[in-house]
């Protein structure tokens, strides 16, 4: 099998996939789940239940009429005890529906099997939307929206993302290994929904056994237009832009989407969820997640209900081995450090990492001066100049940061990772990026206001001129001479 990869840049940190050989274990359901109403990129949901309501598994508890959104469902049966802001893995407190589990495990609608052949493209998209499917690699973009290209654009190629290039994480690996057929089912569903003609399943070569299994099953099932491709084990191989470059030899235009080159990339976990939603009528109420790190007694891969608080996970996996100093949602390169163990698992939680005191040494915070070694430049997978954007941010020269294409940064963390002076490059570039985007919004708003004002004035002038014209034509002549 040919080995694909992206160039330039990238790094290969210690893989630390200590949970690689641990099959998924169903985690017990907690007594109380906290289901945030917003678990996707896009418009927030409004609750469709109230405090005191009795809800059943799979019942919609929050939805939105906005196009870019995905509903959330009750993940246990029981009583809604609160709808209030609760800690959310993305940082702020977010409205959440708190459900007290009655442990009856009652389903809102008994699940039914569906046959793919009986479904139309629109049926599939409708189901994917209703079942609350979002990108489960971490980006949480509503899947139905991703599969509905705007007019003039078509999806030609689907890439299943099984790269899982983040250290520690093994969720996708186990999914490909244990739910091989579901991943393929999901892929076929997506092919039908998107009208794509060809498909690739990209797997890093440190997971070649999963790739082989997928390939064998594809062959046995007689699937012709889907090909398994091995990609080199290199971070960030699983970045959407890098994966497209590696597999297709195409670059997504700056500021654009994979759709602009006719591609949609979908995480393998999402494909499993799609298969379950479309073929088994199951909403997104649980997900596979890697629980790992040095501070947790029993690292492993678990299937966890959405809304399960971290405290429950710590208890159920045998507790902590040392004082918990860092809790990361996602992988160590791009994941988010949490400030409380009250946060719940959400749809985009691909991994939960627990670290003790050693976390502070793993990411030293003291910076020393930049020595211009240019490791950040040589390793940037986008071709940016991280050290220069960092300098620009420190001087608050946003024009310079913008001219250095700061907004093209994918925030993969490689520059900070390789920096021998331990400078906070990714962090500062992220700040610069946000500042530039904010400034652009302000400029756009200013421009819009100006246009509005201009139109208004033109209208007024026109009206005044017409008035003057009808009143006395000679006066207008005089006015012209003066002007």
């Amino acid at each position: 099998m040919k080995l694909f990869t992206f160039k330039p840049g990238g790094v290969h940190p210690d893989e630390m996939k200590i949970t690689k050989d641990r099959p998924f274990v169903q985690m017990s359901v907690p007594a109380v789940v906290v289901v945030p109403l917003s678990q996707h990129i896009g418009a927030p949901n409004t609750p469709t239940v109230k405090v005191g309501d009795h809800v059943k598994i799979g019942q919609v508890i929050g939805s939105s009429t906005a196009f870019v959104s995905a509903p959330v469902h009750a993940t246990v049966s029981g009583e809604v005890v609160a709808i209030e802001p609760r800690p959310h893995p993305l940082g702020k407190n977010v409205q959440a529906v708190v459900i007290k589990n009655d442990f009856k495990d009652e389903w809102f609608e008994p699940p039914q099997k569906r046959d793919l052949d009986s479904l139309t493209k629109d049926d599939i998209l409708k189901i994917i939307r209703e079942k609350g499917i979002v990108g489960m690699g971490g980006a949480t973009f509503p899947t139905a929206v991703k599969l509905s290209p705007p007019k003039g654009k078509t999806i030609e190629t689907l890439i299943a993302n099984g790269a899982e290039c983040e250290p520690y994480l093994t969720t996708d690996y186990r999914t490909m290994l244990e739910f091989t057929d579901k991943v393929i089912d999901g892929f076929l569903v997506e092919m039908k929904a998107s009208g794509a003609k060809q498909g690739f399943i990209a797997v890093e070569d440190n997971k070649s056994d999963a790739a082989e299994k997928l390939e064998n099953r594809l062959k046995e099932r007689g699937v012709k237009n889907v090909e398994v491709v091995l990609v080199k084990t290199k971070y960030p191989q699983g970045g959407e832009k890098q994966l497209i470059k590696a597999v297709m030899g195409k670059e997504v235009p700056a500021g654009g989407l994979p759709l602009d080159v006719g591609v949609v990339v979908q995480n393998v976990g999402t494909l499993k969820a799609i298969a379950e939603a479309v073929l088994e009528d199951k909403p997104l109420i649980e997900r596979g997640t890697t629980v790992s790190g040095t501070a947790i007694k029993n690292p492993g891969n678990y299937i966890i209900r959405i809304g399960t608080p971290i405290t429950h996970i710590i208890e159920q996996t045998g507790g902590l081995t040392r004082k918990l100093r860092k809790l990361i949602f996602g992988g160590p390169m791009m994941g988010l450090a949490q400030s409380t163990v009250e946060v719940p698992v959400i749809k985009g939680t691909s991994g939960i990492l627990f670290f003790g005191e050693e976390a502070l040494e793993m990411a030293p915070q003291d910076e020393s001066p930049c020595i211009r070694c240019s490791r950040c430049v040589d390793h940037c997978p986008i071709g940016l100049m991280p050290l220069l954007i960092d300098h620009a941010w420190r001087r608050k020269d946003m024009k310079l940061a913008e001219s250095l294409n700061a907004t093209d940064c994918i925030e993969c963390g490689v520059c900070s990772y390789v920096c021998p002076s331990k400078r906070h490059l990714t962090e500062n570039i992220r700040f610069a990026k946000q500042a530039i985007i904010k400034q652009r919004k302000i400029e756009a708003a200013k421009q819009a206001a100006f246009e509005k004002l201009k139109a208004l004035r033109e209208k007024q002038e026109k009206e005044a001129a017409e008035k003057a014209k009808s009143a006395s034509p000679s006066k207008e002549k005089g006015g012209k001479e003066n002007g």
Partner: protein
Amino acid sequence: MDDKMIDLVVTSSPHIRDKVKVSSIMWDVVIALLPALVAGLYFFWSLHTLGIVIVSIISAELAEILGAWMFRKPVSLKDFSAVVTGVLFVMVMPPSSPYWLIIVGAFTAIILGKWIFGGIGSNPFNPALVGRAVLMISWPALMTTWKVFPHIIPPHGVSANAVTMATPLNVVKLHGFSQLIAEYGTKAALYKALFLGNVGGSLGETSALLLLIGGLYLILKGIIDWKIPTAYITTVFVLSPIFGRDPLFSILAGGLFLGAFFMATDYSSSPITSKGRLWYGISLGFITVMIRVFGAYPEGVMFSILIVQLFVPFFDKILPHVYGHGKEVKS
């Protein structure tokens, strides 16, 4: 949950960092320099030679403390960058240099070469070469006196009672290449001497072989970019015969290997982009050959590096392709 077991810190991603630190890089450079330095101590052996190596390193460290104090910056001896400067500086000095000259040079390198520009990472020139250039202009006689050491006498060269001798590049400048070959008997013998390092010259510049080994170590460890030395040495090799100079002799003689692998690759005074480094290396080769052929000095490595480093801000404008900004899609 027991609250004593939980004390969360929140930092921005990434949450892991590479083990490479500034100090580990500097140590690797010292390790890479060691073979050539040890060879230099062997070829130019005397207690004085060992003495100036030690004095140079100590002076550089003391200068570092002085510089930090002068510019009110924290003293950071633990990054070992001053050790590198001290070692590099003494390696480009004549082995018989008096102690005071080494002390003046090492302080000049650190203070004038680095601290007045803002310390580590801010120097526009290689500090060790700034030190050497100042001495070269101030005490030209001392800087061009090459004492005779037993290990480096060519078979048919200097008379038995000579105190000083000329470096190979000097001989070529004054008497021509045929004279130099005559001193060694055959061309092959000359190449061998230049390759191994038993010829006259600065303390650490003579052994092309050991400098090459050190340079390859740094390239394999990812500490320096192969493009700078490769472009530099190749350009000298290709350009020299055009001006009637033996290409192999031109790359083996003088300070080219030391300059190409260790001096021109100084981080803060070399370009930060891959393409920029290629053009930088080519420019270095061009200027070196020009000085050797047309200049008053027999050797051009030091001045070519100092001159071309002035143009680094220009080379830094040769930016890499940015993903998604048109063209360049190969993978």
